């Protein structure tokens, strides 16, 4: 089996882990070893404080990813590791966008922000920071639109994900 991976779709994995030292490093090693770049990663405590939830997005071939799922699942501190790329899971991301606004541009900028449901969290004479939440495509579109004002800084949280209905994340 070839180990040279072809860039394909982005996969979104949810990993449910025991909240123990080293668990993130162990998971990151599996990805690195198989030549996968992690695009984004979020870690947070779950409702039961003994466990944490990780949402990881990574690109690579399906076969390679299947191996990663198996190897991550095998780690002693991992309870489960699921690829949600093909589910209808709820996926959200948040971004803070800082961009410059020259005189006369602010109204247009605010209109765009309103359209995307952004919240203005900082406002100065010549710059703004807005907060946006939503699916990744929505964020991309908003960042695209605000690009013309000159984006100074962009911070994205990475995806968080939850399976719908009774399905386990």
């Amino acid at each position, binding site marked *: 089996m070839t180990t040279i991976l072809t860039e394909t779709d982005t996969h979104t994995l949810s990993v449910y*882990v*025991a909240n123990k*030292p*080293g668990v993130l490093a162990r998971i990151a090693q599996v990805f690195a*070893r198989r030549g996968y770049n992690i695009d984004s990663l979020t870690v947070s405590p779950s409702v039961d404080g003994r466990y944490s939830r990780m949402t990881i997005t990574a690109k690579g071939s399906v*076969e390679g990813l299947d191996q990663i799922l198996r190897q991550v699942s*095998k780690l*002693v501190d991992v309870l489960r590791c699921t690829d949600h790329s093909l589910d209808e899971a709820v996926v959200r991301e948040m971004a803070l966008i800082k961009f410059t606004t020259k005189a006369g541009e602010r109204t247009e900028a605010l209109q765009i922000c309103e359209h995307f449901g952004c919240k203005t969290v900082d406002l100065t004479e010549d710059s703004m920071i807005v907060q946006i939440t939503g699916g990744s495509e929505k964020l991309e579109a908003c960042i695209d639109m605000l690009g013309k004002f000159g984006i100074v800084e962009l911070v994205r949280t990475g995806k968080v994900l939850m399976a719908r209905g009774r399905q386990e994340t």
Partner: protein
Amino acid sequence: MAKKSITGADALVKCLENHGVEYIWGLSGGAALPIFDALVDSKIKLILVRHEQGASHMADGYARATGRPGVVLVTSGPGATNTLTGIMTAHMDSVPMIVITGQQIRPMLGKDAFQEADIFDISMPIVKHSYLVKDTRDIARVVREAFHIASTGRPGPVLIDVPKDVSSADFTGDLYPDMDLPGYHPERATVDQPTVMAIAEALSKSRQPVLLAGHGALIAGAQDVLRALAEKIKAPVTTTLLGKGVFPENHPLSLGMLGMHGTAYANKAMVECDLIMSIGSRYDDRIIGKAALFGRNAVRIHIDIDSAEFGRMIKCHHYCHGDARAVLTELIKHVGELNTKDWLEHLNGYKKKHPLSYKTRGGLKMQHILDVLNDMTGGDAIITTDVGQHQMWAAQFCKTIKPNTWLTSGGAGTMGYGFPAAIGAQFGNPDKEVWAIVGDGGFQMTLCELATAAINKLPVKVLVLNNRYLGMVRQWQELFFDKRESGVDLVGNPDFAKLAEAYPGAKGLTLKRAADIRKVLQRARDYKAGPCVINCLVEKADNVFPMIPAGAALEDMLIEAPKPHVKLAKPTGST
């Protein structure tokens, strides 16, 4: 009366005792002082080694020969890092091992304090699991979990890093705590009935099956049911290098070892078969050759306790997640005798046409010595090896009849493994004859353990097949690099027999002529007061065949040396 207080180190040692630990192989040092102190009052025997790598291989050899986890205790920093080769060796070959490392005190961690090494992180890719104990109260739980993890499912090494202030503090916890392993469920590998039925169905249609048994079958103790299955369905059995011993190699259905230096008939069977059933083997690159071509006309079946191995190297038609013995015990109920008469006759033809062979004329040959050794020990001895030509010839000529009598570093290919592994095996089997078959290269990596063997009066026999070369690399340079030798000539070797005699209680023998093989080996067998090193001055340059060049297809096996004018392409696969 107030309860006598115990330290974390006392608790640690108590827990090891409770797990039935007989021996600890180790080397002391500052950060491990409290634990070494606690061992003074313990019934556990501490075996002081001369280098920490030796300790890790001894624990490995003990574990492979007895099935019980081997325990290593070393100090922090270099003491810990010196065990890494042994941990990696155990990890690659699924060997249960507990490695306890002393560590700097907690307030000094991350400050590059004296002998501080972040062994928890350094060892992470080569352990099954690991712990840095930050609270004395956790010690008993960690030890219990470590033994459980190391010895269940697919076994492997577990490292426990214990800061000195943790081991020296008062222990107030429970010595018999519950485990807290919500993500570890080896018991879930239960036999899936529909999968077993599908495999039985596939088998029933096969006329040219091969059973491929690996280390997983040995670990599961599947030897009896494997033999019963092979005899019931009349299927030939080949084993991997690590699977040697799970099926008697003197059985008519045995094809011996397959792979890069396996028998011609085993590899030919893999090419021509219509069904391959791997039982606890991971379809390693050393046995499949070019993956895309491996078993391409056969129904491929993979039985493994570790489902992360499924599809990793070879795509199969049937994957069965489970313990090899449990799966075969179920499978054998649903299969009958297959019509393999023609197939077995055909393979017997190959056995007659391409037997393992060597020339007895000319200089002293490794193969000849090993053949005689095999004849003398009759499969009763435990044999360990290093890595290289001697290892492959030992695998070919030393017929393994019983489980856990063949100990070799397969996945890792660790030179220096054989001798300390033999020491560990001898500790675990004091009444058995133990032979370490080593090369002059590998032996020099861990021969300081002659002291350990001598002091403990272990009658380990060290057969040094001394060709004054790193022979396997020289073979590759001869075959694939126009005989341009680079970094393989071991000029300056000591006289290994004299070297042995320098250790009180050890014996040194020299073997120069083929006519003396039996006599010298017998003298070694008769010496029981301590280790015996036999310096065998064998022919300098000889090559191991059959050989499948790395990355070539199995059908491109070189059964014997190519004609001098034949130029071989540089291998492209693995290494």
